[in-house]
C-alpha cells in the first residue's frame, strides 16, 4: 500500500527532473531536413568582436544567411572566447542540457581542447558531413584536422588559416632581419623598438613557440609531449636568447604588449618598429583602414613560421543547432571564403582547396587582389605545424616564472 504522502513525494521528486526527451540532433547527412529545421531560427554566434573588418564580414554573412536560408545570425561580440566557454560551462553546471545561450563559437587551440575534454561540444561529427566540407583542403593542410595537435574529429568546422608573420615600416627599416640571430642583433642595435605580447596571450605563446623552433637543438622533440625532466636543458637556448634581448626591448622588457592588436597600435604610434600578426592580410587591411601608413611591409623568418587554423564549433546544448550547421556550411562555401580572403573585407586565408573548386569558385579567388603588405604563398614560406599542446603550457608557465613576476 503506497501512502498518499509517498505518492506526493514521488511526484515531487519526478517533477524536479527535467523532461528528458531530447530532440534528436540534426544530421548533416540529411541536408534538406537540416535546411528545413534551420529556417526561421536565430543563431547566436559568439565571436571575438575587436576587429572592425571582421565584424563587418560577419554582418555581411548574416545578411546572406537571412536572404538565402531564412536564418538570423546574431553576432555576440566577445572580448575573449573564454567568455563563451564560461557560459556553456555554467549552463552545464546548472543542468541546462538544451536551449543554451550559445549556438556557434569561433574557437581554436586551447579553448577547443578544453571544451572537447569537458564534453561541451556537439559530438555527432557534424563538421565532417557538411556538404561544403568536401571542398576543404584537408590533404595539404594538416592544421584542418589537428587543432594544435588535438584531433578535430568533426567537432568543429574549419573557417580560416593563419600563419605568423612580422611587419614593419619600410620607410624606417631597409632590410628586416631574416633569422633569429639577425633579429637579436637588430634588437640590440635598436633598443626599445621591439616587443611581443606577454604569454599566455595567443600570439605571445606563438612567438615563444616560433623562437623554440628556431633555437632548440632538436625542434622535432616538440612533436612529442613534453618531458619535464629534460625540459630545462632543452629550452635553455630559448631563455638565453630572451634574457639577452629583453633589456633592449620596448620598456626594457618590464611591460609587454597585451595582444596582437596592441602591437599594431604600438607600430601605428611609432612606439615600436616591428610587430607581428597571425593574419597575413591584416597589415594590408590596416593600411586600407588608415591605421597604418602605406609603407608597411611584412616578412617572415627564414626557417619557417608557425601556422594554424581557426574553426567554428557548436556547443552540446545549443538552441539552434540546425541553424548553426547551416551557418557553418555557408562560411565554408566558396563565395563566403573568397569574400573573407578579400583584403578589402578581412583578408583571412581560405581553408578550401583551389583545385577542388568549380570554374565560378576558381574565378572568385582569381579576382582577389593582394595588398602591399601581404606576402604571397611562396613568400610566406614553410608552415611549421603547432607543437604538442603540453609544450605550450610548460613554455607559458616557465615564462611566467622567469619574467611574469616583475623580474
Amino acid at each position: 500500500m503506497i501512502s498518499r504522502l509517498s505518492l506526493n513525494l514521488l511526484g515531487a521528486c519526478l517533477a524536479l527532473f527535467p523532461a528528458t526527451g531530447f530532440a534528436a540532433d540534426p544530421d548533416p547527412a540529411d541536408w534538406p531536413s537540416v535546411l528545413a529545421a534551420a529556417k526561421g531560427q536565430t543563431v547566436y554566434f559568439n565571436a571575438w568582436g575587436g576587429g572592425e573588418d571582421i565584424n563587418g564580414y560577419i554582418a555581411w554573412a548574416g545578411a546572406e544567411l537571412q536572404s538565402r536560408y531564412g536564418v538570423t545570425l546574431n553576432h555576440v561580440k566577445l572580448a575573449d572566447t573564454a567568455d563563451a566557454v564560461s557560459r556553456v560551462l555554467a549552463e552545464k553546471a546548472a543542468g541546462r542540457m538544451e536551449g543554451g545561450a550559445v549556438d556557434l563559437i569561433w574557437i581554436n587551440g586551447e579553448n577547443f581542447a578544453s571544451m572537447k575534454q569537458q564534453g561541451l561540444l556537439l559530438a555527432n561529427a557534424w563538421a565532417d558531413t557538411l556538404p561544403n566540407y568536401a571542398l576543404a583542403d584537408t590533404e595539404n593542410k594538416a592544421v584542418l584536422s589537428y587543432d594544435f595537435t588535438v584531433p578535430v574529429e568533426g567537432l568543429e568546422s574549419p573557417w580560416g588559416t593563419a600563419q605568423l608573420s612580422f611587419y614593419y615600416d619600410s620607410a624606417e627599416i631597409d632590410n628586416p632581419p631574416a633569422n633569429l640571430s639577425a633579429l637579436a642583433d637588430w634588437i640590440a642595435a635598436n633598443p626599445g623598438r621591439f616587443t611581443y605580447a606577454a604569454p599566455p596571450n595567443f600570439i605571445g605563446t606563438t612567438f615563444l613557440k616560433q623562437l623554440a623552433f628556431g633555437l632548440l637543438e632538436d625542434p622535432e622533440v616538440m612533436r612529442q609531449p613534453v618531458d619535464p625532466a629534460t625540459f630545462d636543458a632543452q629550452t635553455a637556448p630559448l631563455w638565453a636568447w630572451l634574457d639577452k634581448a629583453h633589456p633592449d626591448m620596448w620598456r626594457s622588457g618590464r611591460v609587454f604588449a597585451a595582444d596582437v592588436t596592441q602591437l599594431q597600435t604600438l607600430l601605428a604610434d611609432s612606439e615600436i618598429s616591428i610587430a607581428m600578426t597571425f593574419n597575413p592580410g591584416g597589415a594590408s587591411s590596416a593600411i586600407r583602414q588608415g591605421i597604418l601608413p602605406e609603407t608597411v611591409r611584412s616578412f617572415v623568418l627564414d626557417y619557417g613560421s608557425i601556422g594554424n587554423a581557426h574553426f567554428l564549433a557548436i556547443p552540446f546544448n545549443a538552441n539552434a543547432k540546425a541553424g548553426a550547421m547551416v551557418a557553418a556550411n555557408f562560411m565554408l562555401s566558396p563565395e563566403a571564403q573568397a569574400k573573407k580572403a578579400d583584403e578589402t573585407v578581412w583578408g583571412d586565408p581560405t581553408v578550401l582547396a583551389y583545385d577542388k573548386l568549380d570554374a565560378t569558385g576558381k574565378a572568385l579567388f582569381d579576382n582577389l587582389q593582394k595588398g602591399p603588405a601581404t606576402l604571397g604563398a611562396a613568400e610566406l614560406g614553410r608552415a611549421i605545424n603547432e607543437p604538442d599542446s603540453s609544450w605550450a603550457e610548460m613554455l607559458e608557465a616557465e615564462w611566467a616564472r622567469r619574467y611574469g613576476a616583475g623580474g
Partner: protein
Amino acid sequence: MLRLAPFLAIGILIGPVLAGLMFIIGPAFGHAPLFGATGFSVAPFAHAWHSPGFLTSVWLSFWIGPVTALISLALVALFTAAFSGTRLFNGALTLMKPVIAMPHAAAAFGLAFLIAPSGFMLRLLSPELTGFSRPPDWLVVNDPAGIALLFGLVVKEIPFLFLVLIAALPQTDERYARVARVLGRGQVWAWLTSVFPGVYAQIRLPVYAVVAFATSVVDVAMILGPGTPPTLSVRILRWMSDPDLTMRMTAAAAALIQLGVTLSALGLWWLGEHAVARLGKMLALRGYRFCHDLPLRLLAGASTLGAAFLVLAGLALIALWSISGLWRFPDALPQNLDFGTWMREANQIVNVAGRAMLIGILASLIAVALVLACLENEYRNQIQLSRWARLTLYLPLLVPQIAFLFGLSIWWLLWGWDGTIWAVTAAHLVFVMPYVYLLLADPWNAFDTRYLAAARLLGKSENRVLLTIRLPILLRPILTAFALGFAISIAQYLPTLLIGAGRQPTITTEAVALASGGNRRLIGVYALVQALLPFVIFALTALIPTILWRNRRALQPGFVR
C-alpha cells in the same frame, strides 16, 4: 505595505551577494563535481599562492585602496576647506558633474591616451620642444609600481567624493569654521578641525566604498595598471577565462583571497581613521594655527580642478580619435578626418545604446522608488537606521564584483531567467541602490518636517502630503540620485555580460569587446557614446527642476536663507 520596503531593499542588496558567494566557496575548497573534483582540499589556494608574482598582486591590490581614498579625500577636503562658499566652489560642482557621469573605463582610455609617451601631451610638445621624432621609451602607463593606475583612480574618485561631500554639507554648520577663523586659525585648518569631522561622519560609508572599489577594480586596472604582474582582480579574471577549466577553482580561491584583501584594506582604513582623529585632536588642542596656508590652498585648487580638466580633456581626445584618419606621432592633430566609423556603426550604436538606456532608466526608477519607500517608512514609523543596516546597504559595493557575479549567474541559470532584460535590470539594481540611497538619505533627513506637520494639521492624508509636498520639494535631489543611478547602470560590464548571457548587449559590453581590438577609432566612438549617455540624463535632471520651479526662489540652487 510600506513596511515591506526595507525588507525588499535589504533582500535585493544582500541576497545576490550571499547567493553568489555560495557558488565560490565550493570550488575554492576543492569541491567542483563538474571537473571531477570532490571533497575538501586547499589545493586551489596553494596553487593561487604559488603562482608567480602572486604576493606582488596582492600587495598592489591592498595598498591601492586606502591610498586612492586618502589622496582623493584629502584633496577634496582641502578644496572644500579652501574654497567653500565661493563662486569657484559652485563652478567646480558644475565641472565635476560630467566627470562623475563618465564611466571609469572611458575616463581611463582618455587618460591613457593623454599621458602615454605616444600620447597627446607629448605630441603637442614634439618635436619642437622635446626633440623627439619617435615616442620616448618611458614607462608611464602600465608601470609596475601602479602609479598610473593610482592616478587614473584618483582623478575619477575626486568628483565622486566631492559630490558626496557637498550633499553632506548642509547637515553641518559652517559657522563653526568662522568662529575658528576668528580665533586665529588658518582658513583650511579652521574648516578641517571644526566642520570636517562632522562631514566625515556622514560620508564615511561612501569613502569605504571608494576603498573597496579601488582594491577590486578590473577595467581601469586592465587599461592603466601593471601587466606583469597585474592586480589581483585582473589575475582572477584571467584565471576565470583560462582555457584550462580547472583554473576556475584557483580563480574561486583567489576571489576569496580578494575578499580578504578588500576587508583588510577597509580594516586598515578604519585604523587610519582613529589615528588621524587622535592626531588631529592633539594638534588642535595644542593650539597650532597653520595660518600660512596659501600654497596648500593653491595646491588643492589646482589638483582638484586639474583632475576634472584632465578627465574632460581625455574625453575630448576620445571624441577626436573617433573621427580621425591616419594620426601618427608626433603630429598634434590627425592628418585627415574620417567619419566612416560613425556611419558604419550608427545602427549598432542606436541598438545597444537604446538597450542600455532602457535598462538604466528602469533600474534607476525602481531603485529611487524603493529607496523613497524605505525612507518614508523610516519617517512614518520613527525608525532610525542602525549602523549595521547601513552597512548591509553598502554590501554590494564592498564585496568585489568578481567574487560573486559568476555564482549569481548560475542561480539565474537554475531558475531559467538568465538572458532576459529583467534579469539584467535586477542585477543592475543591486549596484544602483546603494548610490541612490546615499544621495537621497541626507537631503531627505534635512527636510524641514514642519511643512508636513502643517499640511497634516490642515487635514491631508499622509500619502497626499508625501506626494504633494515632500517629493516636489525634494525633486532636485531625487533627480540627481536618479541620474547617478543611471550612470552607474550604464557603466556596469560584468553583470550585463554574465547575467545577460550575451543576449543583452549594451553600450558598455560592446565598448569593452571592441576595446580588446585596440582600434582607437572604434574605441573612441563607443567610449564617447558611453560617456555621453549619463551626461545627457544629468543635464536633463539639472534642467527640469530649474524650469519647473523657476518661480520658486527657495527651490533654486544657491538659495541662502
